[in-house]
């Protein structure tokens, strides 16, 4: 009803002020639920992550300040180096598979004129599977006795592998599960990017005598450069947090071969009850990942404008 009275006096100061106040109050009324949720479940935990890593927390007394004690605890743990090396190795391997395969798959799918809908559909099926289901499914496939993978190797007259039970193969077995479950996302995103490449570029390259591989190198890759870079960063951030695969498949073993930083963090907090040490590990991971996230945000903002 105020709008009615205000309409005539649009230019006058006091009215404008009142309207502005009203508008802001209304807006923050609409925003307050979201602000509360973000405050409690995102912003406060971010701040608390930093505090946590400098504190000794048990659930009885108030947290006490312990300085760098937690960082000393985790860095002096012999598992610390293992966890970081495994995480880096996992991320690296996941990039080799999970980054290259989707791109190649997208390029090939983009050339096909048949069965496109079917292929696009099935490549995304594993992404829709709950991750716990996918991981447990592969646990069964990896079974050293009657597991599917060893049976297939047997059919091909190859020696059986011990997959999850050997320090040589355990980590790569985790990478395979993770790649299988997430490959569809990358493929579909690349496919969308490929379809926006202008045909003239390919025509021109062909007239210049470029073969297929040269066309990929000089047209496809430069034209999708931004999306390739973004996906690279996103994938690094996603795979460095790997937790569910070691948690459900190997428990970090054998001999710490699949222990990752996130899993070690979980162990500190929920197996050893040392939330401070877990927080210290979390903070280290956060610092590393924020660098990549910051690059990603920078890129996506550049693209927006």
């Amino acid at each position: 009803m105020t709008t009615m009275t205000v309409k005539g006096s649009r230019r006058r100061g006091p009215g404008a002020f009142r309207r502005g106040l009203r508008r802001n109050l209304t807006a923050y009324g609409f925003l307050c639920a979201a602000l509360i949720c973000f405050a409690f479940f995102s912003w406060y935990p971010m701040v608390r992550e930093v505090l946590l890593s400098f504190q000794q927390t048990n659930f009885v007394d108030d947290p006490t300040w312990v300085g760098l004690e937690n960082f000393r605890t985790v860095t002096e743990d012999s598992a610390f180096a293992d966890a970081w090396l495994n995480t880096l190795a996992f991320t690296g391997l996941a990039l080799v598979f999970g980054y290259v395969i989707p791109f190649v798959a997208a390029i090939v799918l983009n050339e096909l004129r048949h069965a496109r809908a079917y292929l696009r559909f099935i490549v995304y099926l594993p992404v829709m599977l709950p991750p716990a289901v996918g991981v447990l499914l592969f646990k069964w496939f990896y079974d050293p006795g009657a597991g599917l993978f060893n049976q297939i190797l047997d059919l091909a007259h190859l020696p059986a592998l011990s997959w999850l039970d050997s320090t040589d193969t355990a980590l790569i077995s985790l990478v395979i599960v993770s790649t299988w479950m997430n490959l569809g996302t990358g493929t579909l995103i690349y496919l969308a990017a490929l379809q926006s490449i202008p045909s003239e570029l390919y025509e021109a390259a062909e007239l210049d005598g470029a073969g297929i591989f040269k066309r990929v190198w000089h047209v496809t890759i430069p034209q999708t450069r931004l999306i390739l870079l973004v996906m690279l960063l996103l994938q690094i951030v996603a795979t460095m947090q790997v937790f569910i695969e070691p948690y459900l498949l190997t428990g970090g073993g054998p001999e710490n071969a699949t222990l990752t930083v996130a899993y070690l963090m979980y162990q500190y907090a929920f197996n050893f009850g040392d939330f401070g040490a877990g927080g210290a590990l979390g903070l280290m991971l956060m610092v590393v990942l924020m660098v990549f996230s910051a690059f990603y945000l920078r890129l996506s903002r550049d693209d927006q404008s």
Partner: protein
Amino acid sequence: MSNLAVQSPRPAPALPPKRGSGGRGRRPRAAKEAPREFRSLVSPHTLNTPRGRLIYRITLTLVVVAFTAAFVFPLYWMVTGALKTPEELAQIPPSFFPTSFDFGVYAEAWDQLDLGLFLTNTVVYAGGAWLFTLAIDVSAAYALSKLRPVLGNVVLALMLATLMIPPMVILLPAYLTVKDMPIFGWDLLNTPWVIWLPAAANGFFIFLLKRFFDSIPRELLEAAQIDGASPARILWSIVLPVSRPILGVVSILSVVNVWKDFVWPLLVLPDGEKMTISVGIASLSAQMPQNVLIASLVIASIPTMVVFFIFQRSIMAGLTAGSLKG
């Protein structure tokens, strides 16, 4: 500040002709005009040579076979594996078709693992998360996009900044927070709130919604405002009906997110009666006979698969909406 619609001296009669159809009416028409005059890496000319056609046929067959083997076969193996008896499962070489089609094992899994309870729990968590996400994120995005309060951009930036924080690194403080809420002192563990409320704090959804709301023509809202409609009324009667596509995308993504989540429910819903289906199966997996476990895996994946079969277009649209615009 000059964004408030009433202040604009421009009258509203310039209602766009595509009223009510939102942003939808444009794209398909443009697409229809150009009937696939489309070339990519390989030119149509090369494809028409006998050699090109042969290579294309071979590639097509290889790709279809390889993709089917990689992505459909494991699921086939899962569904049929559950039908096999423990002896048949352990048999070498494996049988491609199960010798019997006894669906009893699915019933057994349902009873033994209490899957009905876990499924109900998960439905409650996902449904509640969906409602809270829509209510909270839509009104926030509406306020940021159309009401434009002071410091609105700062708020939006702070919300988007949470996208930079990988969920794993704030897992422990988030857990401590819900265990003993600051100010209120509530313990949310083992209550549905612990899933519902954090799910609503989703910067990505707010970003998607805000971007869509930004594209709704101002004239539409101005007209309603001059007629005396309140902001809530405008949101309900004008913005929401026009935003159906994006609401669909956000709805599906929010439900699927909750359904697929594992680490968070593992920590915050430890009570065996309150677990989600993923956590329930994982925690009981060690004690189950293999065929029962596999049957429960199948049951746990049916809901998301059904959602995918029905809504694949929206899901894939949401996927590309999330990435950069090309």
